[in-house]
């Protein structure tokens, strides 16, 4: 994937696109553009080779989360209208839309991480005007979901060796993955933050920040800005 068009974009452009997609996913009101965005991100996820375990986990999260989300929205609808028919109609649509938003955010994160190297991410958040701690926090936060998924897979394999059988309808069966995942991610975050300090990964680091954006970057940035304005208006 080194020759793909997205790898030629400036990391800042990729970040701007990522934020635009997040903004649109979070605030967009139309269902169809959201659906198209979801499909587009899914295609991109496959195209950049990031699908696989991440994707399967996404499907599970979607399947598991959707009924619960819709039920929650139906309950909210009933609380407001006290009419089951209206609550059902409103809850199904809004619940599905809400789930779609979450999936878009999740997919956008995976795509951004898989097309942007760790070093580029760190350099993006490392500028003279940004405190090192804030830059470190942001770069760690952006990488959190994909790193967690990789770690979840490793833990899943370990627990499989101990006879774990995951039952999607039994939340208790997920504990042997969720608890060690939480502990291990906390330890990892701690060690990584110490190492970022030790490695002096600080303002101005990395080649990405010294690279100048090209014509394609300006075009994409303009497009992203237009989408942001349209979404906000």
């Amino acid at each position: 994937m080194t020759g793909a068009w997205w790898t030629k974009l400036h990391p800042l452009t990729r970040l701007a696109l990522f934020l635009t997609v997040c903004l649109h996913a979070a605030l967009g009101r139309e269902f169809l553009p959201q659906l198209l965005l979801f499909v587009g991100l899914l295609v991109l996820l496959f195209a950049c080779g990031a699908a696989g375990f991440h994707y399967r986990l996404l499907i599970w999260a979607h399947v598991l989360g959707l009924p619960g989300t819709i039920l929650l929205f139906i309950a909210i609808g009933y609380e407001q209208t006290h009419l089951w028919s209206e609550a059902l109609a409103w809850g199904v649509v809004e619940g599905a839309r809400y789930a779609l938003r979450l999936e878009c955010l999740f997919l956008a994160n995976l795509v951004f991480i898989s097309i942007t190297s760790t070093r580029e991410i760190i350099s993006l958040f490392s500028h003279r005007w940004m405190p090192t701690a804030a830059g470190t926090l942001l770069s760690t936060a952006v990488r959190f979901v994909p790193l967690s998924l990789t770690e979840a897979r490793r833990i899943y394999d370990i627990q499989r060796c101990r006879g774990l059988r995951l039952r999607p309808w039994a939340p208790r069966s997920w504990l042997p993955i969720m608890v060690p995942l939480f502990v291990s991610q906390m330890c990892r975050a701690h060690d990584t933050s110490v190492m970022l300090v030790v490695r002096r990964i600080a303002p101005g680091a990395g080649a990405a920040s010294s690279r100048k954006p090209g014509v394609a970057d300006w075009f994409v940035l303009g497009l992203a800005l237009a989408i942001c304005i349209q979404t906000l208006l």
Partner: protein
Amino acid sequence: MGFQAAGTEALLLEDISLQIQAGERVGIIGPSGSGKTTLGLHLAGLHRVALLGHTSGRLWLNGRDCTQNGCEGFAGVVLQNPEVQLFGETVEEEVSLSLQQRTGDFDRERELDRCLNPFGLGAVHDQRVATLSLGWKQRLSVASMLALDPKVLLLDEPTSYLDEATADLLFDVLAAQAERTGLTVLLIEHDLHRLVPWASRLVAMRQGRIVFDGLPAAYSSPSRLFVEPADAVGTKRSRRGEERVLAIERVSFGYNGCRAVLDDVSLSLAAGEIVAVVGPNGSGKSTLLNLVKGLLEPDDGRIICAGPAPRMDTVGLVFQNPDSQLFAHSVFEECAFLPRNQNLPTQEVSSRTRRALAQVGLQSQAERVPFSLSYGEKRRLTLASTLSGRSTVLCLDEPTVGLDGDCLGQVAGVLRQISAEGGAVLLATHDSDFVKAVASRVVTLRDGRIVGDTARQGDIA
């Protein structure tokens, strides 16, 4: 100096008095939980960043009082787990990232070669970091740290994932660097046979206190392994003859269809055997264990276990990091997880669990919360939680990493007991002392092929 962790009464460091001169090569030793890492982080000026708690007394680093504020950037640090230390995409990029942080005039290309080549990283300079084995990642993390040109370097058990030759190489490189640049090295390590001839000074710790500080030659310690060699104890192998419990037949495997990690590997284990798989980093040891367990399927060849039960039940696999598997609210429940999942009757689950805990010396800790155990106890618990199942073949991946002599002795005892009861053990390790102590047979892997398979006689190559 002393250090009290937040939220506890216990002192992790107590009455520490130490003065280290520039250019010294200090080895810090002691059992698990004795405070080695806590002391090391203080000496590196990272206690404010890496530890939660209160430092008492006075800590002077480079002529500055750093007791309360620490001294970030004073020292380079290499942690035990290389996974958290690497931030670049490729090997070269990783080292370049460090070089970019350096100030002053230097020839970047020459420095890059100087950092990469001693560890053999020049040949893989364009390889993606994610595709490297743990051993190669550890080499890279040391090289990246040396590229920062620190005046002080702290290494916390850096040889845990390194093969014998690379561990020797690491000590040589550190000695050469200290000689050339006056680097002060603080090295936390369990393995004394390499440390003693290398260090100019040895600091031994126990329960947060320094119990020895002086020339390595003056330090008299019991051997690292408090166990008799395998030959003295003997195994059941001879009595049980060739009752085969596991057969690996012409197995080949490559990740995602890429270069073969294992190529035409054949191996069989008889009841009572303890087989050590040794070999350099990336030779395919862990992959072989994962294939035997059934976590991976071979591209070619087959793996057969004696008995009608599926391989997932017949083979037990113990992983290195206990924090990746502990989840239950008590030690007993953690240990009972496997036999319950194997649908054994409640009575049998209980008896197997109690027996497994007794085997590793944790029977009195059955009601404790697993997360409150020390690292050594957690490692023993992960072993017990595999022993409690009905497996006849036990696989262990680097069982000695991070364990002190007492814990190693217990693990060795458990393996011998399994062997004596007719089970078979397959362990992947770099630790030649442990191999000498427990293995009845040594299989050497190199580039995915078996290049040696001998009943243990004397030292391994």
